[in-house]
């Protein structure tokens, strides 16, 4: 299972990096989203992959890592997902404004000299 998730992280991350290096703002936005999937999965996998572990405690009980899923990476990733949404929104709007001002959707605000 680990190899599958590692592969998934690699492909998502690699595709994201490829898009980050492209010249169009939309490509970069998609790239950042892909990269954030990869990073979120990566952080999540720090708690190890556990199928069938309980995420919710018994009332009045205390949990242990033997039975329960690791909550810490989950809490980290949950906030990362929300912040990721916010930054995507911000970047999208900056990109639209920049395109309105410069007339191009090139990441540098001007076309490459050819």
């Amino acid at each position, binding site marked *: *299972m*680990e*190899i*599958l998730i*590692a*592969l*998934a*992280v*690699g*492909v*998502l991350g690699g*595709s994201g*990096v*490829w898009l980050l*290096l*492209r*010249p*169009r703002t*939309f490509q970069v936005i998609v*790239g950042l*989203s*892909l990269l954030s999937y990869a990073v979120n*999965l*990566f952080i*999540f*996998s*720090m708690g*190890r992959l556990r*199928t*069938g*572990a309980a*995420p*919710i*405690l*018994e009332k009045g*009980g*205390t949990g242990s890592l033997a039975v329960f899923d*690791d*909550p*810490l990476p*989950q*809490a980290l990733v949950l*906030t990362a*997902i*929300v*912040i990721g*949404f*916010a930054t995507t*929104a911000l970047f999208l*709007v900056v990109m*639209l404004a920049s*395109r*309105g001002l410069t*007339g*191009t*959707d*090139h990441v*540098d605000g001007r*076309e*490459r000299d050819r």
Partner: protein
Amino acid sequence: MLDDLLLAAIGIPFAGAVAAGLLPTKARNAAVWLASGVTLACFLLLWVFYQTVSGGGVLRHELAWMPSLGLNFVVRLDGFAWAFAALVSGIGFLVVLYARYYMSSEDPVPRFFAFLLAFMGSMTGLVLSGNLIQLAFFWELTSLFSFLLIGYWHHTGAAREGARMALTITATGGLALFAGMLLLGHIVGSYDLDVVLASGDRIREHALYLPALILVLLGCLTKSAQFPFHFWLPHAMAAPTPVSAYLHSATLVKAGIFLMARLWPVMAGTDAWFWIVGTAGLITLILGAYVAIFQHDLKGLLAYSTISHLGLITLLLGLNSDLALVAAIFHTLNHATFKASLFMAAGIIDHETGTRDIRRLSGLNRSMPFTARLAVVAAAAMAGVPLLNGFLSKEMFFAEALDASVPLPSMHILLPAAAMLASAFSVAYSLRFIHGAFFGPDPTDLPRKPHEPPGFMRFPVEILVLICIMVGLLPAATIGPYLDMAVRAVLGGATPAYSLAIWHGINQPLLLSLMALAVGVAIYLALQKHLLAGIEGPPLLRDLKGQRIFERTMVFVSWRLARTLERLLGTRRLQSQLRLLVGVSLVAAICPLILRGIGPSLPKPTAVDIPLLLAWAVGITCAIGAAWQAKFHRLASLILLGGAGLVTCITFVWFSSPDLALTQLLVEVVTTVLLLLGLRWLPKRLVDARLDAGGPGIAPRVRRLRDLILAVGAGCGLSALAYAVMMRPFPDSISRHFLERAYSEGGGTNVVNVILVDFRGFDTMGEITVVAAVALTVYALLRRFRPARDSVEVPEQQRDQSSFDDAQPNRQVGDTVADWLLVPGTIMRLLFPVIGVVAVYLLLRGHDLPGGGFVAGLTMSVAIILQYMAGGARWVEDHLRIHPLRWMGVGLLLSGGTGAAAWAFGQPFLTSYFAYTELPVLGSVPTASALLFDLGVFALVFGATVLILIALAHQSVRSHRAAPPPSPGRAMGLAGED
């Protein structure tokens, strides 16, 4: 008690500066009263200490600053520092009086006095420093405030240039000095001045002595305008004359002298000291005096004369003899008095006639007789005429030049000759000053009709000239005790016997003096013709301009060099920067792998689940497809991106994380809607025709290949890293702590939620604040949004629909759009209450079951989005008023308030309280205070998400003015360009 007062000596001027700075711009008299009060208070305060200090005592006051580093703020006052401090505050008082009449009523005078007082405070702080670092600090402060003072008339280019040059030179020197001080502290093992002054042998014998010496001297020589750093001083004459009188007689330029004399007992006495200090002083002495003769500007003449006199003092310090040190200190005091009075006299002439050009001035003796007499006496002191103070210290200088024990025999002749020559030059320029301005025929063609200045403007000059005469006539009775006190403070037991009498009989120094006077008069007479011709610049040295070299260096360093470096190493292009970033991260990640290996042994991997494998087969295809299509098929790419996101979401479910899966799913929905709204404003991109005709050129192919290698490398690296971490034994982490206490202390069974709203509630608060800030930024950016010209038009589909509606007689424009998705639209409207209830449910159960404020807020915003999609912006806003900003505000207040409420119970911020409440119908609901907090999170996330989406959606409804047209051919992206 006395020690405590020491702090006041530094504090009063700074407090006065702040007070003066706060006065209204026109409060001229108030500023003068304040400034003169402050300077006088400082001067009088010094007399309180005089009793102790004159007996050879040292007053110290220590404040702990960084005791762990051995750094204390030490105010230290001995006789030498006292003499300088008295000079600083005494002449400061006279300058303030003088400035009252000099400064025009149009100038913002309170600012002037604020700078002046702050400068005085820095200078006092410098001379009273008992710690090397502290001294360097005040040193830089004097540079800074002198910059502000020189640039006071900042509307003139000369003032700005002069100020900039002075700051560049003196502050650079200050940096060198700081490094030198660090070295000294390292050698001695302490930054305390008393310790340093007690370890002379250790310093001189240390291997780092020479570097420390050079660095310290760089500071001193730049500050005291010694060759080759002298050229900033004449340019600083663009300052108002009171500033020149203050900075260049008693204070700023004397700081270098002060420090050289202060460290003289521990650093001087070596050949290196003699060669560096002596040579700089000798060259400056002669060069300054020579150039001064040929200045046509009164202040320029005085500036070069100042340089020359500073050279004289420096040379004396460089001679490594105790008596020379006495002469140096004596001349420092004398020079301060006669030079300050001469600057003031030059200022009076400028003020009353409107010019300082010697070629235009003449015969002022008749229109301003008092000023003329005062100036004559002061200039005579400068020239070294007997019975005046300048004569006495110059006699001592000659005696030292004759007796100096120098390393080279030829210096025995060179030194006295140079001393005589420089003195002759100084006689010549003093004559020029007096003869040029006050004698000769009546002036013609002056900007103003010359007359005597107000009595109070002359008063400071009178005081100073009186001192010149008194010291000249009765040296032992007037200056004697103070000089003795200052010298003893520096030399201690090694103080030599010296005599301050006017008449020592006929001896070599006297003969040299008389010779210098005669030669000086002869030089002046011989040069009459040349000087009257009015040629700019001195003969022989006309082309040697330090200023030009300085400017070329500045242009080179701050412009050409920077530009070259930027061209070679920098780029404004994002792609190159990102490429570098990825490349460097790759290398940084590979290095430890090669150096340290992969680490501990790995347990056996778990078996692959086939359903998840299939899901990821889709997910990976989606990811690669999204990357592939993002350029020309944005919508397809967006859909594929959503596919990859969904598979990620499934993965979270698979590995027992329902909370994450829920959040991911909802964010996925909201992000997709957001990006869809954005697509409308992006340029059309069509596959370029050239692509069919043979594809992109070589360069884009190479770039793509390079990026592909980078991307594959990054992907492989990420895979390897993720795999390596997952295969490692699980360490003991704080997760255990959270699992054990989630219920007993947080009152919830959903540990993730308890972490978010309770254990790490403060982090969550920070996070939602960020979300709020982002939403507001988006809102603000979109309010002023101007789309590109080619995106302003109504889209093709909408035009088609409208023209269809127009053509039909029984249809209104917009009907087709309304009919579009009629059935799903109705269902969406009906879903609103259902989704709302789900959101509330998710919120309430969040503490115990998957859900919580984030998820609930996103769910609620999805409900709103659906209404917008179903009915359009206008319909929704007619029926439902959402106030996203209020939601956000309430959310922030609620979460912050819940945290603050804990204070009311004497608990730390965000301490939570919980209990279960029985509610009718709903049953047992956890009512932890964390729920209130979560309610705040909900309100904020909802408000922020809706604000962003609505702001973006509204752009399609707004009528836009297009941005200015871009140059043709730029709007269309071309294929094969990346």
